[in-house]
Structures are given as C-alpha cells and as structure tokens.
C-alpha cells in the first residue's frame, strides 16, 4: 500500500477497498480518544466495512494474525470503551447506517449498528412511534454503541434501558463467525442477547439490531420545579415515587450545573441562586395525566418548592429538555475540562450522598456539578478541572474515584449507563470481588478466547501493561 510500510493496510484494503481504510498517522490522530479524553492511544488503522460480510472478513483476517481490534461507533462514549490502548485496528461501523426494516404491527425496527439513535425516532414518528432509550448524546450516538454500552437515558425510569428494548442481534464473533441471537421472545438457551448487550464490545461486534419501538404516549406533561434546598428536592423525588407515580423522567440539576446550562447553547432562563431544580415528566393516557400532575405539584409544594411550573406547550417542553440534554457538554462554557461520573445509588440515600460529594468537592478544591437521573438514583457528578494546570487532571480522576467509592459504599454501583471502559477498570474492585471478576472474564474467554476484541477493557488487569502491547504491535 502506498504511503505505509504496514502490509496489513494492503490486506485490509483488499477486503473493504482502499477508500475504507485509514492508516496515515495524521488521519488516525482523530481516533486516539472518544468522548472520554483523559486516556489516549493510537490505532494501527481504521477500517470502514459496509456489510456484515466485510466485518466478518476483516475480523477473520485479524483473528488469524492475532492482531487486536475493537469496534467503534460515533465515539460518544464517556468511559473510553472505543479508545485503542495502542496498536489495535479500529473497526468503525459508521458506514453501516441504514434503517433496514420497520414493522409497526409487530412494533419492531431493524437497524445497522451505525444508525444514529435519534434518527430512528425521526424515521418512525410520522407513524406515531418512537424508540425509547434516549441517552443525552442521542443526536449523534449510534444504536450499535448503545447496545455495547447498554445505554440509558432520561426516560428509562419508566421505560427501561437499552437491554429492555433489544429483541435480536446479528453478531460477528471475535473469530469472524456470524451468529444470530433473539428474534423471537424467550429464545431457548442462555440469554446471550442479554449478555451481549452491555458487554462493551468485548464479546462480539454487533452488525444488525432488532429493537422494540413504542407507540407515542397519548399525552405528555412536564413539570419544572425550583428549590432552594437540595434536601427538599431529594425528598420530593422520594415522595413522588412513594405516591405510586411512575414518571417517565425525573431529572435533577444543582447550582453549578444550572450555571453551566444557562451559559450553554440552550439556556432556559432559570432564576439565579437556585440550589436544585427538578424536571419531571409524566406520560400516558391523557385522561389520567392531570391527576398525576396535580399530585406532583402538591408534593413539590409540601417540600417547600420556590416555584413550580407545568410546560405550556411542546415548544417550552422542548426547550427544557434541550437545556437538560446538553448539560454535560455545556460545562465546557464554565470549565475547560470536565470528568463525568456515573454512579448509581438507592434513591433513598440521595441526600447523604450529595452531602458527601459536596465534602469531596470542598476538600479537593474542584467544583462538582450534579446533573442526574434522580428517579433512578443515577448520579452524574461533573468534576470541573483545567487540564492545562499541572496535576489537575490526576486530581480530577482521584475525585471521580472517590465519588464512586461513596456510591459503592451505600450499596450502589460505579456505573449506571456509561460503562466501565478504560476509565473505571480499577473501580470495578469497589463492587466486585476477585471471584466475581474472574467469573466474568471466564465468560469473556468463551467468546473471545485470545482477548483480541477490545482487549483489557472493562476489568481491572494489573499484570499486563501497555508496553507489552506496543512491542507486539511494532512492526
């Protein structure tokens, strides 16, 4: 291949065509990280297959040569799952971006992995349907990536996460073999469909996905409530749930987060000086919505709400959600860098956990913004830092880890929807014993015996360091 001494480039080009292989160092640089930017590594090449057969052929070739590889979608992941550790071939699935089939009567849609999440809802909305999992990155993230990460979103309190909506998968195994999972409900055999979803691209590369689509709810109403005490907002969350209401979404933001979103592209005009706000959405049969909204407003009032409003129209509702959904990145306006964490806690422990996070922030001197799915107990503390200041990146990483320890200690977990990736490998020890980690790596070995596919992600692995891999990939 012209321009490189790496013979692999020519071999891959023979499979997918030369326009579907990137190998120049300058071109590869854009692939050294995903939306988790603290760790970086260079791939050996990036290939862009267009069909399952091409993916299988590329994988088979790499497997034969024992060259490590990993899949990548839009690269919007927040835990580094699509970052090379050094020397892997990236299999980018962004050119497999077709909507293959929609069957509204059976409420299914079949997509290729590179199909963008929000486009599915856009493609079926004229028929009155939508795809429920709605991660904040849904404008850009791919459904293949959602499956790998078992992505959540603001509306999974009522509707569940990706795994509850994946009905079938076509998967290229790490040896290049193509298998089909699911398709009909409760297929006999171990639930590989469930196991594959959320396996962070370490068990196989998904090349086709059958998902459940839902009918749009008859009515949606959204409430915005402002509080001057975080505790009041937290108790309001518990009270709403205790009242027997299952909101479609129940989101919370604290002072720092509100400051960020108000500087961002989609400000709502929240009044200054708030300690917390709740964004609560109820959907379902129109006849039953008002009753629930009245109850929610009542709960908020009993919890000393400063102001509580119901969205007057779709436009207002849209503005509130745009404000919330762009919250992470909007922190770019008040801090050059941020690290987002993803701990989950039992909802009832919210006040004490938020207090602990506040103490960590004060001790470390780093500001922490909290934007989170309060109904699920899924926290997203955003640790604000400036990578240009010496030592601050390391401090941010330490703070992130300390926050996760707090979540684990109250019986929660270290990640609710962003995945472990590279970022939280060590923190897996907060929630898993050695035996439990081994139980999982043994499952990985069944699928991925040579650990070539997205190697060394997801699990702590002290023994093998990066240098060894570099030597292997040196050529």
């Amino acid at each position, binding site marked *: 291949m012209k321009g490189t001494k790496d013979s692999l480039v020519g071999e891959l080009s023979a499979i997918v065509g030369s326009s579907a292989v*990137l190998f*120049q*160092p*300058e*071109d590869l*640089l*854009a*692939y*050294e*990280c*995903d*939306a988790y*930017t603290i760790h*970086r*590594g*260079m791939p050996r090449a990036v290939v*862009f297959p267009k069909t399952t057969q091409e993916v299988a052929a590329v994988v088979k070739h790499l497997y034969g040569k024992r060259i490590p590889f990993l899949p990548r979608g*839009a*690269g*919007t992941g927040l835990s580094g799952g699509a970052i090379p*550790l*050094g*020397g892997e071939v990236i299999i*980018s699935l*962004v*050119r497999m*971006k077709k909507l293959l089939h929609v069957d509204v009567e059976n409420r299914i849609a079949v997509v290729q992995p*590179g199909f*963008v999440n929000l486009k599915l809802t856009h493609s079926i909305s004229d028929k009155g349907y939508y795809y429920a999992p709605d991660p904040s*990155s849904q*404008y*850009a*993230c791919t459904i293949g990536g959602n499956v790998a990460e078992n992505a959540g979103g603001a509306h999974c309190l009522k509707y569940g996460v990706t795994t509850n909506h994946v009905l079938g998968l076509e998967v290229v195994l790490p040896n290049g073999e193509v298998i089909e999972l699911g398709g009909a409900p409760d297929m006999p055999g171990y639930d590989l469909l469930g196991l594959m979803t959320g396996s962070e691209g370490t068990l196989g590369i998904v090349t086709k996905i059958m998902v459940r689509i839902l009918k749009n709810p008859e009515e949606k109403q959204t409430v915005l409530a402002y509080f001057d005490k975080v505790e009041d907002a937290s108790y309001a969350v518990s009270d709403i749930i205790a009242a027997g209401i299952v909101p479609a979404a129940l989101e919370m933001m604290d002072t720092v987060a509100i400051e960020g979103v108000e500087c*961002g*592209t*989609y400000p709502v005009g929240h009044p200054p000086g708030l300690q917390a706000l709740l964004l609560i959405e109820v959907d379902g049969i129109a006849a039953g919505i008002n009753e629930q909204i009245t109850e929610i407003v009542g709960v908020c009032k009993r919890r000393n709400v400063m102001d509580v409003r119901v969205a007057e129209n779709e436009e207002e509702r849209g503005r509130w959600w745009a404000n919330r959904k*762009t*919250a*992470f*990145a*909007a*922190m*770019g*306006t008040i801090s*050059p*860098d*941020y690290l987002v964490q993803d701990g989950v806690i039992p909802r009832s422990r919210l006040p004490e956990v938020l207090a602990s996070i506040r103490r960590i922030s004060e001790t470390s001197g780093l500001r922490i913004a909290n934007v989170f799915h309060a109904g699920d107990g899924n926290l997203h503390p955003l640790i604000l830092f400036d990578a*240009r200041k010496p030592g601050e990146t390391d401090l941010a990483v330490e703070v992130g880890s300390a926050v996760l320890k707090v979540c684990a200690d109250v019986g929660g977990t270290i990640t609710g929807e962003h995945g472990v990736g590279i970022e939280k490998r060590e923190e897996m020890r907060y929630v898993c014993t050695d035996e439990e980690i081994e139980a999982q790596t043994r499952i990985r070995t069944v699928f991925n015996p040579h650990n070539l596919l997205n190697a060394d992600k997801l699990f702590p692995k002290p023994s093998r360091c*990066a*240098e060894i*891999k*570099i030597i292997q990939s*040196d050529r």
Partner: protein
Amino acid sequence: MNQSGIRMVKPHTDESTLVHMSATDEDKFAACVHCGMCLESCPTYDELGHEHQSPRGRVHLMKAVAQGKMAISEAFADPVFTCLDCRACETACPSGVQVGTLIEEARGQIRETLPLTGWKKTISRTFLRKLFPYPARLQVLGKALKVYQRSGLQTFARKTGLVNLAPQHLRDMEAIMPMVTEPTLTKYPHGIPANGKVKMQVALFTGCIMDVMFSDINEATIRVLTRNGYEVEMPQGQRCCGALHVHAGDREEGRRLARQNIDAFLEADPDKVIVNAAGCGCALKEYPELLREDQEYRERAKQFAAKVEDVSKFLHDYGYRKPQGKLNARVTYHDACHLAHGQGVRREPRELLESIPGLQIIPLPDADRCCGSAGIYNLTNPGMAGKILDKKMENMPAEAELISMGNPGCMLQIAMGVAKCGRNQQVVHTVQLLDWSYQKEGRYVPAEEV
C-alpha cells in the same frame, strides 16, 4: 513510539509553524470537550464517516498542531479545507465552540506555512486578489459571462427550456421584475430616498458578486426598504466583504478589505448596515474576530459589526408593512448556513414569507443542511459539493414551485441542482417574493397607511 502507548506524529521541531501571528486561540478550542454532539450535523462527516473530517476531529487536529504533536502538513490541510464552513456544528455544539472561526484561522495558518503553488496559486490569486476586491473588474466579467441576466434561474431556465414549462403565474413574476443591467452601487451613487416619512437611515452592503450577478435582488431589496420608510445609502467606498478570502486562508487580504469596509460604512454612519447575502453578513459580523489583534481597528470593527443586520431580520425587527399582493404559489424555504447557523436567523425569513397572501409554505426536511455551495467550495471541492447538493435535492419537496433563501451562493448552487434534476422550480431570494407581492398590489401604499 513513546512509552505511553501513544504514537507521536513527527515530533514537531520547526519553530516557525508554532510561532505564528494568527495562531488559533487556545480558549476557543479548549471549550471543545470532544463530546461528539456535532458529528451528525456535519455534512462531510455524514458523507465520509471519517472523524478527522468532522468538527470535533478537526478541532482535535488543531489542538494537536498547537501542542506541537502534529506538523502543519497536507494531511492537516485536507480536513481543514474539506470543511464547508457551514457552521451547522456551531448550532449543534452545547458548549459554543466557534468551529467556523477556528477553521478560518487554521486555514490562515496553513496558507502561511504551505503557500499554494502552480495552477492552484494562479487561480486563487486571480479570483481572490485580482478580481473580487475590484467592483469594476467584476462588472466586466459579469457582463462578459452573461451568466445571469434578470433572475437567478433565468439563464438556467432558458438554457434548459424550462421557462416555457413554468406555470403562467410564475412567469408573471419575471414579467413584473424590472430589467436590470447595471450594478446598484454605481447606479445609485447618492443613495435612494425613503417613500414617505423616513423611519431610519440604512446603508446597503451591495456585495461584489451580488451586485454583478444578482443586482435585481439588490434592486428588490432597495424597493422593499424604501417602501417601508427606510432611506438607503450606498457608501461608495465599500468593497467585497472578504469572506471568500478568509475561507481560503487569505486572512491578510481579508483584513485589508475589512478595514476598507469599516472605513466606508462608519464614515456614512447609518443606523444599520443591511445585507442580503448571508455569507457576507456573517463575515461582516465577524470583523471583530478577524481584526482582534489590530490595535487600530479592533474597536471600530466592533462598532461596525453592531450595525450589521440581515435584511430579513431587519425588516422583522424594525417593522414592515404586510404586503397585499396575492402570490398564488407553493414555496419552500432553504436555510442558508450563514443565516441559520452563522447568524441564528431562522424564524424571521419564514415569517416574512408567511405574511405574503396566497403563498403556501411547504416544509423542507433538513432545511438547514448545507447545499454544498459554501462560498467557492463548489469550485474547489466539486465532488463533495455535488454529493451534498444531491442530498439537498432529494429532500426538496417536488410540489414546491419556488425555492426561497437568503444567500446568492446557495441560489446558484440550488439552481444548478434544480437543472440537474430536470425539475421545474424557480429559485428566488426571500426579499424578491416580498417585493413581488408589493408590486402586485398595483399601487403604492404608503407605510403609514397600514
């Protein structure tokens, strides 16, 4: 290969590529947190799927260059120049990264480090340095080429015989439009008085290509403004806005033109500077950015930029009389990138169209997706521009008879798309429709009456 596992790209040694008079502003790319929300908004990423051909990828490369991890090379230049500068990513970006400005600065860096050579240099020099800055030369070219005579589509229509297929009520529009032969800047050296009571004094930025190829749009703009009580001045010292120069990385010529325009318009001291070409309007508003290191002009640039307003937004904000002439036609509206993404003007032109009696507005899916024109992009990157145009035309509703927009570059590109698809649609400027409706009233109605 270093120990961290990150393979460095040609460790940077040449000081001159770093020490640069217009190095990219670190704070501007520090705001990019690499979240990827911009990816889907980017037409070139959509087409290629390559991350270095995406907004965050390009910003990532700029960071790498600034940090000395990457040299300024053709491999850097390619993604930077493949960018359409359509700014759709700026709309998508939650943290307000000014990708357009960063791209233009990077182009400047590249052209200083890697000057064009051979035929590319000749073409670039001819167009950017010897033609656009000089209205007289452009006029000669315009007349010689006869690309455009009366309305944007006319030449295309005549060539393809489409004009005879156009329904009668659309041919009416051509009939009603006055014949144009002369650029407005030279035609009205002393400006044009308002009809009736003077509400405000405005200056018209006539634009270089606009005034030669689309002078009837300028005429329409003048008629609409004066009819609504705005006195129109035509500062004679004005020149090309310099957008194309800045896009191409020729920031030096861009700055020279900017200073000239600032002088010309601040001397005339109008209440507002009205622009009917979105690309120009965007460039004029960004003079403060272009001249941020110019001690003498920095403040003047801000003063000037504060006066610049797109004609649709100006009419919407400062008032216009609802037209009464009925236009029985179906129209769709295309958001010019530099209007929607560059200036945030989306609602106003649509409201202007809605105010025209009889006009039925048909939504255009992905209306704010770039058409591929992007200044002279369709000349420099015809392959990519063609693919992007094809997508635009796929979305273009067949039932629309008129396609309205606010930028001459888009008008030419979409007219080409219409011709390519063998369609029977007429491309018009939003202001032309307003003017057409006023004309159809048949009599002059003073602004105060309504």
